[in-house]
């Protein structure tokens, strides 16, 4: 799960990382009050789960508290569209009002888990302020990495090494390394899969400051991060993806019209690939998972049917742990609930296949049954032609 900038900054501040004076506001009046408290000039920053906010008009300099109110009024309740959001953008319901600083250096600082090193890697660059992907494309030599040895954690000398390699003056090496160690501690304690401080700035007066922060928590570690649920903002996610997420389903909304329900992530991807290769377009990725109970399948199917773009549905299930009859029951339940008459193409294989087919035939006699994925995509093409 992603955190908002203000949430991430509050966590980092609790690890002793300096952040600018700031406050959040959910109304224009609040924004004005916070601006008075913080002082002007200041920035009003839309709190959305997406990068590229500056380009999308989500970060505005204001010169007075009144202007803060005006800017907040225009932001709050609107949607921010940036290169990293969907076409419809992300809703703004909170803004952060934050003091403006005199900046000497703008650095990039991030930590990710690296699959090759099988360890956290601290990434730094002196090209702060740019997106890391841009730096990678335009100045790959400016991206510096230090692999963390899990036994001893991230060490001061690695931080100094990064500071020197970024070309910072010697006297900044220790303070910058110190911030990196704090960031690493937060990363581990909070089970992050990603933290990014972009930029980490050094002000003209020599103070290191977290100017923007992104933090993504490993969903798999939710069981030991009791504070995390309260920090989750479902409104920042696609409404159907959010619904699926709350139900524990792996679902990704796409732009096509073929709703897909598959068991297994790899098979779901392969099914999407086959649909696309046949000239049709999948409306979603959906892995209903291994031990698919009827109720869970019904929920999954409900999410597919709730997508107005979906015009036809493909079920592809290789029964193993998942039983075809369970799947069939779930489908029937949600089709009845939805009242929709969308065409349904079904491929069942493995455990309890015949029973599954029987259940579906009875409840929805126009269901088209196929044996192969290639057959399914052919049928889907025919449906389009109709």
């Amino acid at each position, binding site marked *: 799960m992603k955190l908002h900038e203000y949430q991430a900054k509050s966590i980092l501040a609790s690890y002793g990382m300096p952040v600018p004076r700031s406050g959040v506001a959910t109304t224009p009046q609040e924004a004005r009050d916070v601006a008075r408290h913080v002082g002007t000039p200041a920035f009003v920053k839309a709190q959305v789960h997406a990068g590229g906010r500056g380009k999308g008009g989500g970060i505005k300099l204001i010169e007075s508290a009144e202007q803060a109110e005006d800017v907040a009024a225009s932001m709050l309740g609107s949607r921010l569209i940036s290169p990293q959001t969907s076409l419809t953008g992300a809703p703004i319901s909170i803004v952060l009002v934050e003091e403006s600083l005199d900046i000497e250096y703008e650095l990039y600082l991030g930590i990710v888990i690296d699959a090759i090193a099988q360890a956290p890697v601290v990434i730094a660059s002196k090209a702060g302020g740019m997106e890391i992907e841009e730096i990678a494309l335009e100045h790959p030599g400016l991206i510096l990495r230090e692999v963390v040895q899990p036994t001893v954690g991230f060490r001061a000398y690695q931080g100094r090494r990064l500071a020197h390699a970024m070309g910072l003056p010697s006297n900044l090496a220790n303070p910058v390394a110190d911030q990196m160690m704090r960031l690493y501690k937060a990363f581990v304690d909070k089970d992050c899969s990603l933290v990014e401080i972009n930029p980490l700035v050094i002000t003209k007066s020599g103070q290191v400051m977290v100017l923007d922060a992104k933090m993504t928590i490993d969903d798999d570690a939710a069981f*030991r991060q009791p504070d995390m649920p309260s920090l989750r903002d479902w409104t920042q996610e696609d409404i159907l993806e959010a619904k699926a997420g709350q139900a524990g389903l792996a679902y*990704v909304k796409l732009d096509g019209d073929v709703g897909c329900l598959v068991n297994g992530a790899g098979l779901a*991807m392969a099914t999407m*690939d086959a649909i696309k*290769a046949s000239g049709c377009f999948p409306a979603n990725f959906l892995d209903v998972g291994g031990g698919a109970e009827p109720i869970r399948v019904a929920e999954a199917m409900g999410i597919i049917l709730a997508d107005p773009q979906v015009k036809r549905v493909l079920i592809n299930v290789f029964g193993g742990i998942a039983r075809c009859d369970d799947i069939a029951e779930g489908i029937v339940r949600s089709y009845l609930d939805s009242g929709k008459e969308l065409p349904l193409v079904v491929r069942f294989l493995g455990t309890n296949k015949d029973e599954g087919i029987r259940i579906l035939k009875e409840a929805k006699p126009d269901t088209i049954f196929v044996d192969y*994925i290639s057959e399914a995509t052919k049928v889907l093409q025919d449906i389009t032609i109709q």
Partner: protein
Amino acid sequence: MSILVGQDTRIVVQGITGKQGTFHSMQMLEYGSNIVAGVTPGRGGVKFNEAVPVFDAVETAVRELGANTSIIFVPAPGAADAVLEAAASGITLVICITEGVPAMDMIGVLSYLRGSNVRLIGPNCPGAISPASLCRVGIMPSEIHTPGRVGVVSRSGTLTYEAVNALTQFGIGQSTCVGIGGDPLVGTSFVDVLTMFEDDDETEAIVLIGEIGGNSEQEAAAFIKSGGVSKPIVSLIAGQSAPPRKRMGHAGAIVTGKSGTAEEKIRALSEAGTTIAPSVESLGEVMKQVLRGSTA
């Protein structure tokens, strides 16, 4: 011979009394797998299926019954501990089925295992099966497998079943099928399994099934290209239609940079001389042609 699991495999099931553990232990027993013991802390003393002794600790299964392979169905919060227990108790092959193990836990586990003689498969994987020895240590449907000379290695579960099914339908049997898992951090890589297949007398050709995200397919391609594998390989990459920055089910299946795309992986595996299968259904036919070519 097969790889990883076979006639010498003596299985202990960690989490045998849980729902998943019970279901798959029954399936494994029915197939013929040699489950010597189960482990569920706090439940030691009972019998599973009126025959398999259940212990409180893995070390009892190793000491008393010579278990050498563990399969783990323990829920995610305890999965890392289960792997470490197996490793510390003398188990040399640990297959972790559990999905959703926190990344930080895996970092600790992998760091601990490095330099030891313990091999971990997974987590979040379907396990391994060697049909000729009727040895299944995993959750794959038994009936689709048939003994033969093609090795299968994959990051995916059900997609592998499709692939095996496609092979079997074309009369192509399997030496061993291994799912290495869909997480970014796994104990065993494509390269590890390819090395084993290369050294295995009973494996004649290999199916490699990758997917978007990470760059383990590129590592495999580089290894093949450098001469690490002389046997013919048919490869398949899932996720060509996946959008960037979206996690497609598996924690590892997310395109974040150029190297994570299906296109890049296909290009690398193609340049390494493997035959790219256009779809999972075509795998049987493509492999048949490849085998015919390699024999000729």
